[in-house]
């Protein structure tokens, strides 16, 4: 296809051509960044979490008398175990993504520093089974460790801990974490096991790279344990929540008892991200539609304006295919210029957002990706007007001269 005549005619219509280029460039820049944000949020909604998310029900008891915890918690656990379909029950201080962060810095040497805030979980006897933790190395806590570990000044009076695989790799790179000592404020605990990665209580407070920084301590029945974890099959969980709330409501008449499935807890945490994703998707779709209609409108105008020229070209031998490809090539040139500018603009916007909104750097493939999307959109939009142009009969040339 000969490009020079197209360029010559575009030079005659500088303003409309510049407008199309500008519109495509802006749409490309906004699309790039919006899609990138969508991608990031969707990825966060799907963060993996190595507990039995589908089978856990969590009942939270607030306002129970801490002095009676040693007798009440074992009594409550026995009652909860009696609910049909429950395979394991344990008390705990908090759950991943429950938005009540209990954070501490943990390091491999007594005097070291870190920017990572680790989420601290205290679990009662059988906690590993009730939560569905996955052991990768070492062993679980034994009965003696559960019975002999207390809670003082927000830390464990016991001597053992479980760490996640991410933390094991971060604190002791290239070595086995088993038997190593984990320090916080100069107190040490021996690592007896490594579990698959469990999410923090609120990853946004954990610091860079701290999303999977979680540590588990054993704890005897204690007033700080407000959560009861009940494990069942996913089909039973809703019923388990209802029955467990009733059971605990009767046993603890002076306390506030609330029940939730863990799946519900997780979707609560990501409800924000979810609504943002839908809003971004909506904006992208509407913006692409507006851009497409703009291209259709302007090209239609051009076609109408050039009916006579098209007629003359047809009369001197151009086929329908030639006319069709003329407009498509013209659109291709405009789209290419627009997306080139748009890609640069998108990159600039990303740099600005990185500076002001804690955005990550956009991976390079988003740029050609949205460039191709807009280029395809342009071709699609120009198809209708171009076909109408091709349908101009050669006789038009003779009529108006």
């Amino acid at each position, binding site marked *: 296809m000969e490009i020079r005549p197209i360029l010559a005619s575009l030079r005659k219509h500088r303003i*409309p051509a510049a407008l199309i280029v500008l*519109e495509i460039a802006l749409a490309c820049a*906004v699309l790039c960044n919006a899609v990138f944000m969508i991608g990031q949020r969707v990825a966060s909604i799907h963060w993996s979490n190595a507990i039995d998310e589908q089978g856990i029900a969590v009942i939270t008891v607030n306002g129970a008398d801490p002095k009676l915890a040693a007798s009440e918690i074992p009594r409550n656990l026995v009652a909860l175990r009696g609910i049909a379909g429950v395979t394991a029950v344990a008390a705990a201080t908090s759950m991943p993504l429950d938005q009540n962060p209990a954070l501490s810095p943990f390091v491999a040497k007594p005097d070291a520093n870190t920017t990572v805030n680790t989420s601290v979980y205290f679990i009662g006897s059988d906690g590993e089974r009730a939560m569905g933790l996955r052991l990768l190395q070492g062993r679980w806590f034994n009965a003696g460790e559960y019975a002999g570990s207390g809670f003082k000044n927000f830390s464990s009076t016991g001597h053992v801990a479980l760490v996640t695989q991410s933390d094991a790799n971060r604190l002791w790179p290239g070595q086995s974490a088993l038997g190593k000592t984990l320090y916080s404020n100069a107190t040490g605990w021996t690592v007896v096991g490594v579990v698959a990665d469990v999410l923090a209580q609120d990853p946004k407070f954990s610091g860079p790279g701290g999303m999977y920084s979680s540590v588990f301590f054993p704890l005897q029945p204690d007033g700080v344990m407000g959560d009861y974890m009940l494990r069942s099959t996913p089909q039973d969980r809703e019923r388990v929540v209802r029955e467990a709330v009733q059971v605990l409501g009767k046993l603890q*008449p002076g306390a506030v008892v609330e029940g939730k499935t863990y799946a519900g807890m997780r979707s609560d945490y990501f409800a924000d991200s979810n609504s943002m994703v839908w809003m971004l998707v909506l904006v992208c779709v509407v913006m692409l539609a*507006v*851009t497409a209609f703009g291209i259709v409108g302007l090209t239609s105008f051009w076609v109408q304006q050039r009916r006579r020229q098209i007629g003359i070209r047809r009369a001197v031998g151009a086929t329908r295919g030639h006319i069709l490809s003329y407009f498509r090539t013209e659109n291709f040139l405009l789209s290419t210029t627009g997306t080139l500018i748009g890609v640069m603009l998108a990159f600039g916007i990303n740099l600005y957002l990185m500076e002001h909104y804690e955005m990550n750097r956009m991976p390079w493939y988003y740029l050609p990706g949205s460039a191709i999307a807009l280029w395809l959109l342009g071709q699609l939009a120009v198809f209708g007007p171009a076909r109408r142009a091709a349908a101009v009969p050669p006789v038009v040339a003779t009529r108006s001269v």
Partner: protein
Amino acid sequence: MFGYYLDLALRSLKRNKVLTALMVLAIGLGIGASMTMLTVLHVMSGDPLPERSGQLYCPQLDPLPLKYQQSAYGPDPRLNFTWPDAMALVAAHRAERQAAMAGGALLIRPAQAGLRPFYVDGRYATTDFFAMFGVPFLRGQGWSAADDAGRTRVVVLSDTLSRKLFGTDDSIGRMVRFGDADLRVIGVSADWQPKPMFYADASAKVFDDADQFFLPLSTALDLKFDTNSNQSSWSSFEGDMKSPVLTWLQVWVQLKDAAQVAAYRQFLIDYSAQQKALGRFERPPTQARLYGLMNWLDRQNLVPADVRLQLWLALGFLLVCMINIVALLLAKFLRRSGEVSVRRALGARRRDIFLQFGIESAVIGLAGGVLGLAIAQLGLWSVRHRPDDYAHLAQMDVSMLIGTFVLAMLASVLAGLLPAWRACRIAPALQLKTL
């Protein structure tokens, strides 16, 4: 002439319905999206106490040690006060009114059968709280300075909480069980919810929460009630809430005029200097600050990054829509070159042509504004269904309603400028030849 141009504009818009609809739709979508986010921003940066905000100030001291390193993730300890500093400021009485306060969530165990225990949010404060913020009372009143000193076990309930507990707003003299303590009701306030709850610290959901009870700060401390504001300490405080190394209280003062403000600022610096001389403060006394209410809210950055991002996105979208309309209007106006030439040849000035097309763009803007308003209402409806704490605030007020039309007209007239200019530059002779 205006009526005639309006008539011409309507005729021209009717002639090509699809194109007109497209332009109105584009401007409506752009305006709708932008106004949705602008309204959210507007309600979030509103004045919580319009009659009083000009007189309310938030002091700030710097009791941190020189070597203290602020973590990028934790809250700034200086945003709150230590017990000794807060009490010293309240006792000094250098402002018209002053109060120290902290938030707390307490377990209420209702005496009535059938009501399960529940948690409510409220505030522990010193006596001036009510007069300074203008909390409206339905019955009774707040406590006195003597109650503050005597750690009296009294409480002021909100209308909602009073009705929930006793079925009436007249609960004066009755007892409520908070945690393990019985408090006597001495007042019932009308439901009072400044948006945002400027006096709470950053850990609160400031757009959603409302205080359901108020009780003397000294009483709360006496009964060891938990606070839910940020507690930051820079050395061991052994669980002592009166420790000089633990910040957890908020202090607000009311100052009448600029002279008082200047005097109070000086007082804060003098106080810091005195504390430094005593060896308690390590940093320069000039670190002490005094912020006006609105200034303080600006500094708190209450608008979440997500909302600001969405506003930028919406404005970017409006820009795309505007360029689209410029292109379409240009096409439309230039197509009428013949008509323009005839008018020019018959004596119309460039200015007339410009005005004619300007009016046509404004008509599109007006229609786009109406559509934009509808879309913005739809957008705000969807914002109200978001899970965020500010969601329920998303309502349009009169100023935003007018703003919608102003923005729509501005956008469309701006978009019409270039096409109208191009149209009035058409050389009539050249066009007339081809007619």
